């Protein structure tokens, strides 16, 4: 019902999977588990996936919500052009990165989660989605309307001081002098 944006969910999953992968790698290296070299790879792959997935894509329709401080990451990811734009490539990349994690106990969960994220990215790619950078919108500078060629230099002309001062004997006209007529307010 409606157009589901699979890529957004895949992005959240991949970011979480990258963190799980890196955490599992840290546990594996710190505990000096058997096959700790895979844990090292897990840390590197997890960090790489987090950096790649941190900048959110622009939504097809609606307001895009940026992550805090994602602009510099957006610029870096955008620099790779079609490699990062295409979700088929991303799905394949995540699938490749997750495989070594399956050989070590601490990184197994990271491997499975990244694998799921890869499948959701494949779904997004099949639905024709692609990554669009969220760039700050440059508004055109506000220009003064064309009809105003030059603002006036002098104030408007005023009557001489004798006419401006109200005479005290004229009580009806001694009220406040309105510049324009005032009607009863609603």
């Amino acid at each position, binding site marked *: 019902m409606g157009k589901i944006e699979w890529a957004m969910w895949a992005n959240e999953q991949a970011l979480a999977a990258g963190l799980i992968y890196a955490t599992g790698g840290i546990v594996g290296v710190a505990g000096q588990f058997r096959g700790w070299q895979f844990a090292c790879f897990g840390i590197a792959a997890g960090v790489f996936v987090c950096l790649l997935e941190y900048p959110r894509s622009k939504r097809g329709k609606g307001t895009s919500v940026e992550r805090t401080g994602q602009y510099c990451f957006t610029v870096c990811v955008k620099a790779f052009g079609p490699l990062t734009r295409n979700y088929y490539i991303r799905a394949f990349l995540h699938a490749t990165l997750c495989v070594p994690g399956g050989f070590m106990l601490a990184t197994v*969960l990271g491997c499975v989660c990244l694998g799921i994220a890869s499948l959701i990215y494949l779904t997004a790619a099949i639905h024709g989605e692609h990554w669009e950078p969220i760039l700050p919108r440059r508004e055109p500078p506000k220009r003064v309307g064309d009809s105003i060629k030059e603002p006036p230099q002098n104030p408007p002309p005023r009557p001489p001081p004798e006419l401006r001062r109200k005479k005290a004997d004229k009580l009806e006209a001694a009220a406040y002098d309105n510049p324009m007529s005032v009607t009863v307010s609603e």
Partner: protein
Amino acid sequence: MSVALKSWRANEGPKHLIMMFWIAVNVFLFWRTFMMYFSGAQYYYLHKMLGLGLCISRASASVLNFNCSLVLLPMCRSLLTFLRGSQRVTGRCVRRLLDKSKTFHVACGVTICVFSVVHVSAHLVNMVKLMIFLALFLVPGVTGVLLVLVLFLMFTASSYCIRVSSYEIFWYTHNLFIVFYIILMLHVAGGALKYQSNVEARPPGCTHNNLSSWTNHKAAGEKGAEFSGAPQTVCQEEAHFQPHFPQTWLWVSAPLCLYCAEWLYRFIRSSTAPVTIVSVVSDPCDVVELRMLMSGFKPRPGQYIVLNCPSVSSFENHPFTLTTVSPFYGSIMEMDILSTCIFSNLIGSSAFLSRPRVHVDGPFGSPSEEVFNYEVSLCVAGGIGVTPFACVLQALFDDWRQYKLRRLYFVWVCRDLQSFYWFADLLCGLRERLWRDNRPDYLNVQLYLSNTRGLQVIGEERYRFLSSRLRIGRPKWKLLFQEIGRANQLKRVGVFCCGPKGISKALHTLCNSNPHTGTAFEYNKETFI
């Protein structure tokens, strides 16, 4: 400054108190379980084998038990609505705490995720220490992996941007919670963890009669540090180990049964109560208005319902605030909802072709119900967020005298001028009614058009009341609060917001920080997603 403290205490105090209490219980459970496994006699041998990994995994498991049981309670919506409605039993403080039920649910959920990571990491270390990697293929191992995967799917689909962009993903993955709980019950039933059941007869460090004196001396020496005061005893029997009774079943069963019972009650109520769609009207700015008739249904102004339409989607349920509630005939109530979402558009379009069956779950309480319980209220609506206040305005139109409310400030910020036409008649009608009843100061309306491009006016003669209150640009909240503070000194003003995050944050800050000549501002926020 003392007045700002008063507002801060009213707005933040109870919430922070509950959070501190919850954190204290979590810390206590973690510490108590940690110490039990660290220094308890019945876990002496287990601790010797596994070390700190055992203590951390068990302590995090007890925190997980506590939070898995609490996380369901804020989602028992009918129960919360009942508590909110029984105003004689619960005070305003408790009702305002009920507004934070979703925040509490999220806090428990995040805690479950964090402590799951701790629990899994500790068990990984345990498995490596004991070199029993095959444990991953036993019941606790397999169920543990499945639990993490389900939690991963639920957590990643629960972020704010997913809920806003693709609510269906959030809805379907979050309903995996029942799978989560079933697997959780199996996870703890494995009986892998055992404690020594005969510590009195065979305390750790006791000496065996048939072992060499060197072995006894070594065992006693090892234990000497912990049991230095105790005399060396003779082991009367061999150590017996038995598995625990799964504590998780005790923690989780009551809230789960309560939630399931409540879900069953809501399912039966929504399936048996017939709902008829009377009309579907297309309003400006892609908004659909659905009018329905339903019997045996008594919603209060400000409440919301959850709609299910099998012809559109069998499993999806979407929440909508009621904009009008009025008795139609006997026990039949007529109600309206106004919505921009695709789901309501699809119901509307299917209603043109046939009479689709619609199930209504609810009504459920929301913070907007409290508008009537203050003497002075400020209602701020952003765009379609006006819907809860529309019902409030309608209720005031029907009979404003029965409520405690004496003055209402209504601020409506929209991007499009056409949006104001949704409730232009209601606003003008209410104002006419109040003028006739000699209460011209009851209703203060301010309309703001945030889109400043082009000349925009409400030209119709019958809406002159609105056109004179229409301002172009965004509201200046500080000035508004100062004006309300000066006009309502020493009063307690209820501030209600239903709109974008920016507006609600600004209002929340102003409610807490700005000293307003003795006026206290109590902040209430409405959220749907």
